[in-house]
């Protein structure tokens, strides 16, 4: 054999060796430890994680949304350099990409609702009906729908069409309340069946359903549910150093939002609305900075439903019936949570409603509920209507992102897409 041929064969062998030695090199698979394949979640052991994921997504939605809702409803003023558009001045135009974090709110809803479908498939019907994780996912779905219904002018869901989920058309925001009512009801049933593990879930679901039924005008049913929530009870969206509370970040690490320009700056020493004044300016270099102190740590939790809220809800129900004494009683029960002195509710409607509004705002300070209160009271008019809400938008249109991506949301009257801010 000639030297050339020998070397040719040698070269061929050398060429093949690395291929043989590194057989995994020939694999075209992506190796990415850390990300979890969708199909890997189809086991019973993953169900707790699915429920926790739904809870995490609700927390994330609240984290993003409560900041905007608080500025929109003058719980907080803007004094920073972040661009919040016209939210601080109460204008929510429909040309913005994602008003009010529609995507994060929808993700919270979707992960709960679709998580439940996966749970049913994996656990089977019998186990499903008494599983605390299932109850928790129902609860998260209920709160996510309530958040959508309270903040959005109109909403959209994914619909099952010919066996496939597609993005559905825009609908009245009250459809989200109907969905929430159903989800809370299932949470109560399954949580009850789950026994001790589901006890807190059941109480929270009563709180959620109470508010929903009130918004649906079913006040009598609402107070029945509300009564099942003790004043000291709180269901929180939980933050941690891994999932930080950005209201804290933006009012401690930074000075983006201030109480200086809102009514609370003239309400000192209310334990429900804690704040401190500073000599600093906001991040805009101009606005005096008053720091909120409700969320004092990076992992401070945001209440989603609580007993004090229920007492105020019961007070409102009583006031709607003209039961001033009853309303006063419930308000003072709520105040006991902070060891506050009792108040006397005025006996004229305008003053009574003003007091109730103040008590509700303070009780739910920085919890992202005030804009909805403005909205629902403005529809009912005086004496419920808060004059501070006059001329301001009170719900978020469906943003451009959803409009472009969802072909079933059609252009509405008046050039608005997906509903107008002032629509009820």
């Amino acid at each position, binding site marked *: 054999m000639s030297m*050339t041929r020998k*070397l*040719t064969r040698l*070269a061929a062998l050398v*060429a093949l060796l*690395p*291929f043989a030695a*590194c057989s995994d*090199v020939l*694999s*075209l698979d*992506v*190796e*990415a*430890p*850390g*990300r*979890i*394949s*969708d199909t890997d*979640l189809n086991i019973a052991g993953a169900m*707790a*994680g*699915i429920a*926790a*994921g*739904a*809870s*995490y*997504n609700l927390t994330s939605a609240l984290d993003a949304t409560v900041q905007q809702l608080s500025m929109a409803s003058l719980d907080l003023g803007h004094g920073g*350099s972040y661009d919040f558009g*016209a939210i601080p*001045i109460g204008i929510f135009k429909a040309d913005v*990409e*994602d008003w009010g974090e*529609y*995507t*994060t709110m*929808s*993700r*919270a809803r*979707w992960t709960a609702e*679709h998580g439940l479908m996966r749970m049913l498939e994996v656990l089977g019907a019998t186990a499903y009906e008494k599983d605390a994780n299932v109850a928790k996912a129902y609860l998260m779905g209920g709160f996510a729908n309530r958040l959508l219904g309270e903040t959005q002018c109109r909403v959209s*869901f*994914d619909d099952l069409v010919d066996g496939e*989920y597609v*993005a*559905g058309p825009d609908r009245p925001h009250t459809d989200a309340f109907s969905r929430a009512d159903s989800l809370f009801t299932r949470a109560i049933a399954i949580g009850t069946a789950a026994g001790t593990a589901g006890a807190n879930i059941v109480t929270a679901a009563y709180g959620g359903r109470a508010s929903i039924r009130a918004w649906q005008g079913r006040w009598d049913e609402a107070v029945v549910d509300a009564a099942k929530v003790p004043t000291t009870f709180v269901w929180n969206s*939980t*933050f941690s*150093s*891994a*999932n930080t509370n950005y209201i804290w970040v933006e009012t401690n690490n930074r000075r983006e939002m201030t109480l200086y320009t809102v009514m609370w700056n003239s309400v000192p020493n209310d334990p429900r609305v804690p704040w401190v004044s500073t000599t600093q300016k906001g991040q805009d270099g*101009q606005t005096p900075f008053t720091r909120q102190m409700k969320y004092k740590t990076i992992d401070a939790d945001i209440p989603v439903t609580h007993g004090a809220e229920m007492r105020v809800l019961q007070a409102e129900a009583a006031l709607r019936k003209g039961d001033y004494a009853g309303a006063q009683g419930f308000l003072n029960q709520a105040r006991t949570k902070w060891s506050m002195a009792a108040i006397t509710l005025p006996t004229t409607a305008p003053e009574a409603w003003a007091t109730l509004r103040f008590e509700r705002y303070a009780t739910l300070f920085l919890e992202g509920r005030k804009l909805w209160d403005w909205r629902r009271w403005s529809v009912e008019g005086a004496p419920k209507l808060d004059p501070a809400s006059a001329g301001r938008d009170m719900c978020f249109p469906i943003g451009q*992102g*959803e409009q*472009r*991506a*969802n*072909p079933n949301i059609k252009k509405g009257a008046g050039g608005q897409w997906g509903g107008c801010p002032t629509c009820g």
Partner: protein
Amino acid sequence: MSRRASPLVPLAVSAFALLAAAFPASAQEVGRVTGVVRAADTQRPLAGAQVYIQGTRIGSLTGNDGRYLIVNVPAGTHDLRVTLIGYTQGAMSVTGRAGQTATADFLMKETAVSLEGIVVTGTAAQVRAREVGNALAAVSSRELANIPVTNPENILGGRIPGLTVLQGNGQPGAGTTVRIRSQTTVSSTTDPLIYVDGIRIFHETVGTQGGARLGLSPLQDIAAEDIERIEVIKGASAATLYGTEAAGGVIQIFTKRGMSGAPIWSAELTGGFNNQPPMKIGNDPWDLFTKCAGEMYGIGMTTATYGQEIKFVDTTCPESGRWFKNGPVQRYSLSVRGGSTGMGYYVSANYSDEDGTLPTQRARLGGLRANLDFAPTENVKIQLNSALAMRALSFVEDGNSLRGFLLNVGRGYSGNYLGKPEDCVGVPAGVTCFANERIWLDAHNTTRSDRFTTGLTVTHDASEALTNRLSIGWDFDQINNRRMQDWGAVLTALGNLGNAINYHTKLSIDYAGSWIRPIRSDLNSTFSWGGQIFRDQHRRTSYYTYDFAGPGVPTLESGSRWDPPTDYNLTQTNAGFFLQEMLGYKDRAFLTLGLRVDGNSAFGENFGLQQYPKASLSYVLSDHAFWPKWFETMKLRGAYGFSGKAPGAFAKLRTWSPVSDDGTPGFTPRDVGNPDVGPERTREIEFGFDASMGQGRLGVEATYYNAKTSDALVGVSQPGSMGGWGTRTENVGELTADGVELQLNAALYRTNFLEWRVRSNLAFSRNEAQDLNCQDLDGLPENGRESCQIVAVANGAYIRVGRPVPEYWGYKILNPDEHAAPIRSDSLLPIGPVMPTRLLGFSTSLSIGKRITLEALLEHQGGHYLPNYTGYQDERRGVWYPCYEIQKVMAAVKAGGSASLLDPYTAIERARCATNITGAGSSANPAGHDSNYWIDKADFWKLRSISLSLELPEKWVQRYADRATLILAGRNLLKWTDFQGTDPEIEDYQDRAGAGSGAGAYGRREYYSLPPARSFLATLRVTF
């Protein structure tokens, strides 16, 4: 600050000594060839020419006197060749006789366009420039000999038509943005592929840890001293054989190699300093308060203080009255190259240490390289290349950072740290006191990077016709970014430490074969085939800990609290093969047809393989007898081909991320997944010509290209109501791009004593998005497709159908030049492209006598825009000097003065200087503060470099060396621009790093970013 010599230096010297001893010129020499190589017209000796025996590795380089000596020449007749860029190839037959010395002198004919130069195309066979149908772009070491460059980024800027190099940040060690031709993607990286000596290395820019806010480019790891030449493969039609990922072009770097002969040592010592030129912002006397002596003032911007002068001082201002200082620079390099029969070596070491113009800025770079060549038999050649590169960088906090230098100093009385009483002794009442140094010196940003690249290439000439080449390469780099605030820092009293480590490895196996055969006497065929596998592993881990117990140098264990660590880990493979046939007719017409087929980990399950065809034609018209002799060279060329970009690694998969719900593990949506996703394909057509005339005095290269990316990868927004999965990568876009590139080389004056050359290149480019998932919403085709995706890019830039990619959009003042109240647009309007659309590089060299050469490079980039966030943020705080006057006038108007006081000011001046201090800009309040008004044209001219080299007389150096050259040089000496920020080509890189990969990474913003310093350098280069 004490300086210690790097341990690399003695190591390198020892290694060199060993190598030189191990590979002496062979004592078994059978004969020698010597001679002198001169320019034919001027008779000037030519240094650096390669003289070699064709088909062997036996050869040598000419010295300063043009003389060469080749030892170990086997007995017999040989084909002796000489090559030198800028000259036609020389050839001569020479007979070697044992123990004797033959003489062969060459007279080289200059040419502005060399058709015989060997270029790299991805095949195994060597290809002459005349055979290539694409535009060729190269820079050789000869052109770099006397200019102040340190890495390929410096080399390429302004020298290659169509190649954009934008400096990212002014700090020593900062990387650049490199882009070849127009952007043809809306979601993938635009960084070109990088090959070093045939081995592909990790090619993407990596951002530093938060505070330094700059990017680090892998090109910075290759020392300029080691580079023999750089070839730039532009566009999809030229890069077809490189397959998926090559649509952004390819940069091929070739380092120096050994040649037969005695060792030639080369040493360089450079000293100098960096100096910060004034930023020249309007008539600002304080140069953005970097001149800090005495009292300064800003304008009050609250309702109560509006228009008043707010006085302030900085008690930590240096005695010099200016924050910037001169930063010393020292660089050293040493190399040796040589070899004997059947082997060659090139070994080098380099070390540099330079300070920036602010304390804590320091860049130390070091590298070792060993390129070994063996020829164990006549037809087997082995190349083993290894390189180690080290960077130890220390940065000042920069950009939009709480502790940023300019963000604090440049904000005047609105900085983030008011002096404490002990800082402010003696400061009069009513004057605000700052102690800025306390805040920005508290932050420590460092980067340590290490890269090791090694490659083995075996070339086997099985016969004269058949060549096989196998390359196996491994590239590893680790970048450790660290950001720390000491315990006791003014804003974070307990301190904190963040650490992010990026690891990349790339294993490449590359085989190519070529079979050259004559089909007829006038028709030759070169058939090539090959395959490549690239296996990439990326890992990024980061940690953040805070609240230290006390002083000292902390580690990650020192904190009492920690954020959860992050860990990104990914392995991807790309594999493909190619076939190519090139037909050459009478050695003047060449037709090339090729096909590349690729598979990639990122392609969807339903996608399969991707094919990229190519075709090119080259025709050397000047080889015809009818062609006029004075018109020496005319090559027509045209090419058509495809290349691609792979989707992101997870585009095909539906995945979930692990999350913690108050300690309970859970899952949240991550990647929605698209099993049908494939690569985007860029088709490019280019044609042009290369011509030279006037005895090589004038050369022109012109190219027009037209590219179209179909199936462009677009992150298609998913409805939030479908789960909030974000975007799904789909092949639903289309982009077009075209451009013209022109290069002119001219020897304007050429005598034996004086030679004046110019080289200029000009490029115009444009691109446009044609389709971004456009949908026909109303079902009426006559209305067109009403809804197209709008891809949001960072910093106010977007990608929109019918517009340049990417482009800034914003609310505009519609009557900018009227002396009237501003009128603002009701909607976002296009402002201008993010990247330059005009490039002009102009270099010139003037050689006087045999010893003096003067060289300069002037560059223009234009047609693009850049947000001036320094101006915007300073204006809204009343510390932007160009606004002082109008703001005072407005205050007077508000205080009851006549509105006519504002008449001298245009609408845009009133809007930019926010004559309505309350509220943000809006249609109702057009003169409110708004960053949209600060997106400005960023055209600039820069004198990138100028150098004067003096070759020292032989009698001065002959006792120590063969040749010594003294070079005095300057970089970044002058700048001309109307851009009002700190510099028109820099950016806060964190904007892009924060956006991650994809379209978000295309946006740029100048945001309290330090401009590049100018450098003054003196270099002594010695060969011996």
